[in-house]
């Protein structure tokens, strides 16, 4: 018994001795190891991923509609078929929701040229197409803007020389990019009127230097992702065949 106690005591002393001996940092070595195809894949991890991958792939590959041609945002100067399709899809899908919630109609849609992230290729349109067109999670917001601010929006578009997607807004400019005519749903812009402009939350927060959304009368967040708008639009459509039209033109 006495020996046992002695050993316990010794263990305690060893333990304390180790604890008391403070370690000190002598050397640090840092590097970065690239993950490349020269590394073997862990089979267990791959097998774990597989059912998830199969489901996602199957779903992404499901056909929603058909694209009549290949559409690119670089085909067109001030409006493009693909941009017109996107802005019109936002109007068609978001307006019923906005109307149910507020009793009002969206007056116009403005998206950004940079927000079209891929082409729309000819042939079957799948869920994957929607992810490629819109990989980001941005949602649609509707901003109540006074006519005067809609004028700033219009002058931004005149100066931008870029085919930002628009819907229900019609613009014409001269050879010096000066505004000739601007209408919203066929009516001249009334500086005193409040317009309900649908855009995405990125632009609303000043993205692409679109500073004209603030201040505003009110903001309605539809919590409706643009990608889901595209998916819902594709599901309803049989063939997608948008055209370049006269919504934004330069008259030389």
């Amino acid at each position, binding site marked *: 018994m006495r020996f046992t106690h002695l050993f316990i005591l010794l263990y305690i002393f060893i333990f304390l001795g180790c604890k008391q001996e403070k370690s000190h940092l002598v050397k640090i070595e840092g*590097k970065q190891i690239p993950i490349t195809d020269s590394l073997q*894949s862990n089979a267990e991890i791959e097998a774990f991923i597989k059912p998830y*991958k199969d489901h996602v792939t199957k779903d992404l590959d499901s056909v929603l509609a058909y694209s009549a041609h290949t559409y690119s945002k670089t085909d067109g100067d001030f409006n493009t078929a693909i941009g017109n399709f996107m802005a019109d899809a936002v109007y068609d899908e978001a307006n019923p929701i906005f109307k149910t919630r507020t009793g009002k109609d969206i007056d116009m849609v403005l998206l950004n040229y940079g927000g079209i992230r891929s082409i729309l290729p000819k042939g079957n349109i799948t869920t994957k197409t929607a992810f490629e067109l819109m990989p980001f*999670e941005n949602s649609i917001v509707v901003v109540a803007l006074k006519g005067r601010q809609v004028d700033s929006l219009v002058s931004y578009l005149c100066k931008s020389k870029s085919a930002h997607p628009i819907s229900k807004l019609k613009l014409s400019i001269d050879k010096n990019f000066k505004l000739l005519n601007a209408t919203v749903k066929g009516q001249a812009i009334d500086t005193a009127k409040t317009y309900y402009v649908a855009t995405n939350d990125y632009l609303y927060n000043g993205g692409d230097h679109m500073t004209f959304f603030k201040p505003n009368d009110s903001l309605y967040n539809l919590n409706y992702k643009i990608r889901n708008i595209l998916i819902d639009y594709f599901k309803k459509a049989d063939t997608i065949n948008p055209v370049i039209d006269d919504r934004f033109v330069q008259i030389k």
Partner: protein
Amino acid sequence: MKRRDFIQQTTAGAAAVTIGSLGLSSFTTSKTKKITILHTNDVHSHIEPFGPEDGRNANKGGVARRASLIESIRNENPDTLLLDAGDIFQGTPYFNYYGGELEFKLMSMLKYDAATIGNHDFDNGIDGLYAQLPHAKFSFLSANYDFSNTVMDTHVKPYQLFNINGIKIGVFGLGIELEGLVDPLNFKETKYLNPIEISEEMTGILKEQEQCDLIICLSHLGYNYRNSEKIGDLKLAASTKNIDLIIGGHTHTFLPKPTIVKNSENKNMLVNQVGCYGINLGKIDFYFDSENNKTADGTSIIV
């Protein structure tokens, strides 16, 4: 106290000698110990490797490959910690379909020890992050997000202590300002606190109270912001003391090698970040020697 310490240490030494013949000869007091810290950041749901057509990222990344690399490093040195500096979520359809479940499950299989929270980890709202917590067998650390009025309350710790082979390691987390970056509907009542002030508080606890041998900051603040008041890792490193390593994220910064920074006491420390999408794994080895072998040379840093 000092005298008592001395007696205990002497006794222990004597005990080691005395009972050495009883099978405890492996106990030595002056062995060098090596702690390996492995880290990722901004993996953004990149589960599979990039394909051969993926430009500059072609054939890089992939969780299954990262798993074998980590396994081989752990086999070489079991005294390893695996950490992530946030933005685990968002970037591939895996997130859109499963909300982060697969990311957390895989990180658990890879035996991650801890992660901090990035701005994109709020992309399905704070409720979306909370919903995935059951899939994570690792800790979430954030010292400067006050979650007390949110569902994440009690699920995030400011810091965690790891005792590896007798080396006490303190890891604390820091997140970026959410206002203007994340929709308030997503982060709800999460409060952002000043990362420099919080770091001073954390290092006070970890160094003075907990007597840590190694202090690591897991940061999603971003590497550096030139001509800006914004606090990045370089600014944080230079304005604080007692942090040995800041593992960064957010800015997707690919560094040719870890950055050596002088802290507020003019001591060298490291800031590292390994780009994004699981293309690289950071590996920092810390070598410790017993105090009685201490030389005047200080710590050498090899990068």
